């Protein structure tokens, strides 16, 4: 493995962290449209908090996918074809969520709006749940063959208890992250209700994290392969969760929002750390795919590194600027 290959492995991880940190609260806000808001004005308010930014947040996923394709074509090929149906329904989720913003605002009556609120909710639930499943399946190992493809995978390779726990955890964290975002971005009844809901959900989060840790211990080789780093990252995840809870109970909005985002970062880091130096874990360890096996050529990686070093800071500057410009709280009576 070369330095550039290692760098791109980290970068793919960072792009996924960016995606979960940013689009994570969009999913949570999407769930809040039905679970938290109770009438049209509240729903308008909730949706408006992410209206100007969700599209950019979603680009993090497209970039993560593109970067994976570019830097690790074999990983991209094996992962995407290996998780065919899960990705199909992730796409369905992203599509119905993606169109529901514009379609809802173009609706004429309550019945139509209701339809797009439901697609918004379902899409926002599907995507994080299935991403949670996908990542957990990935680290549990799949039936890879000598040609690097996932062959003859069974139903339980995709749907199993650990994966479902992972899916529920991702959905729950997204919802909490969304509630924390709403506390930051709204005024009035939604803000209060988001706080009350979040307070109730933390116990569930901690139960989920304990289950996650137990299953990670049993079902993955993380603790036999990389004990110290896995343990440290697991502890960090717990610390972030405690910080998030503290921030919520003490009503420190920024702290709780950043902390739920960091839980995502911790989980992705935990999973990527466990994967390393592999990108795909074979049920037969002989066929596990390594970073070094699946990377693009040094030349392509070099080109992409240069391009990224130039463009990513610019992207961060203007998207940060756009957040700043829309930093005002969204009030219910505009």
């Amino acid at each position: 493995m070369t330095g550039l290959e290692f760098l791109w492995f980290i970068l793919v991880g960072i792009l996924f962290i960016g995606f979960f940190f940013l689009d994570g609260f969009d999913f949570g806000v999407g769930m809040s449209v039905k679970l938290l808001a109770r009438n049209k004005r509240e729903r308008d308010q909730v949706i408006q908090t992410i209206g100007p930014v969700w599209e950019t947040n979603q680009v993090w996923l497209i970039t993560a996918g593109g970067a994976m394709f570019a830097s690790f074509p074999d990983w991209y090929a094996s992962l995407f074809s290996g998780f065919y149906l899960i990705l199909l329904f992730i796409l369905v989720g992203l599509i119905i969520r993606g169109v529901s913003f514009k379609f809802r605002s173009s609706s004429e009556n309550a019945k139509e709006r209701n339809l797009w609120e439901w697609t918004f909710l379902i899409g926002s639930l599907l995507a994080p749940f299935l991403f949670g499943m996908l990542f957990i399946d990935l680290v549990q190992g799949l039936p890879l063959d000598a040609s690097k493809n996932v062959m003859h995978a069974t139903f339980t390779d995709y749907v199993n208890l650990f994966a479902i726990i992972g899916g529920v955890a991702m959905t729950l964290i997204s919802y909490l992250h969304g509630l924390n975002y709403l506390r930051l971005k709204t005024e009035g009844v939604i803000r209060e209700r988001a706080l009350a809901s979040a307070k109730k959900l933390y116990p569930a989060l901690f139960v989920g994290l304990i289950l996650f840790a137990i299953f990670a211990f049993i079902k993955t080789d993380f603790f036999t392969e990389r004990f110290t780093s896995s343990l440290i990252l697991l502890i960090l995840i717990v610390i972030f969760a405690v910080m998030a809870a503290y921030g919520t109970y003490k009503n420190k909005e920024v702290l709780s929002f950043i902390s739920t985002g960091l839980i995502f970062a911790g989980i992705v880091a935990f999973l990527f750390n466990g994967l390393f130096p592999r990108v795909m874990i074979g049920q037969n360890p002989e066929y596990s795919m390594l970073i070094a096996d699946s990377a693009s050529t040094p030349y392509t990686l070099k080109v992409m590194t240069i391009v990224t070093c130039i463009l990513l800071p610019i992207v961060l500057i203007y998207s940060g600027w756009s957040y700043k410009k829309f930093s005002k709280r969204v009030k219910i009576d505009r």
Partner: protein
Amino acid sequence: MDITSLARFQFGMTTVFHFFFVPMSIGLAFAVAIMETMYVVKKDKIYKDMAKFWGNLFLLSFAVGVVTGIIQEFQFGMNWSEYSRFMGDIFGAPLAVEALLAFFLESTFIGLWMFGWDKFSPKVHVVFIWLVSLGTVLSALWILAANSFMQHPVAYKINEASNRAELTSFSGLLKNHQLWLEFPHVVFGAVVTGGFIVAGASAWKMLKGSDTEFFKKSMNIGLILGLVGSILTIGAGHQQMIVVGEDQPMKFAAMEGIYEDTGSPAPWNIVAGIDTKNKETKWEISVPYMLTLLGGQESYVGMDQASKDLHDEYDAKFGTDMNYYVPVKTLFWGFRFMAGFGTLMALMAVVGLILLHKDKLEKIRWLLWLFVAGITFPFISNTFGWLITEMGRAPWTVYGLFTIEDSVSPGVSATSLLISNITYFVLFAFLGFVMFIFAKRFVKKGPYYVDPSEARKAGIDPFAKEVF
């Protein structure tokens, strides 16, 4: 059905559907940018209303375009894993640049544009839409860089050990002559698409006689874009044809429906009866000299000779049992539909502009109805354009290097592919339907519509004069 056919059907379906909305977004963003610029320059509020009104249609198309674009990105890995392995070293870089350079730009500034009307001065606000427009065009550039490689591989070497194409020069990838023909052709085609949507919808409102000044001005902009765009598209397409004749003789011969080599100078078939079973052209109506005049070559090889040449060149690599004939009828008639509607649009734009400026257009109702029907014309041209480009590449995904048969994902079952095909089909039909209803309803309401319930809530009398 086998997995290759299912994967091909899916690629065709998603690409065609996605490519309804891509040129629409590129074209409308550009049209809106021009309208808003006119508002900033002329300070006439009607242009601001125009930018907002047509901008809404742009946002609708963008919403559907983006979500179908994610399918495009994902399906390379999902359905075509072996192709991704072969092409990843080359395809990946432009795709990653597209995301970093274009997608972030578009999506961020769309947010700023959409929600920033009251936050920014007009001079700043207009910059946002130009950045969005730039983003849409840059996105086309990078994805076409990848596509051009598939049509005409350059700047690569084959790694025998890993059986993949590896990039040797990033600038070489961008200097691909196919790119600089495809890119202008696609982008100018998108300008026509935007222009004809604006013109067609305006014609419809002129027929209804509502907001006449607004829609006449819109029509003018739409027609100018349609005219300039279609002339440039035809010009770029012409250049592209010349190069296709050299790079992909089979595609060219199929587009012209010639099995046997032409004489010199070559005639051009306007229409022809093609018998793909016996590999012959049964009858044709042709114009002498025309193909030589159009294509710039004295004579052209027919498909039979092209097939022989391809066999000579590739038998050692791909075997003697390869079929190098492409779907001839689709290419032949596809080209005639594409070019025919392209020419028709250029003519319509000229006639429309002349009559509009003589103030006669609104009296000729049948012509206005033709413009309403004309909304579909760029979509027909665009779709056939892509069918020709991609089907004419058969039997390869990467011309001369990697076949379609070898490209599919071996681990994906036919059942999975069937499920995804049905899911996408239902989803696309639904999205297309909703999109059409919303667009129609939106245009019907017109630019100065005030929702009565909103107005009541805000304490405004919806019929008071100041509302309008």
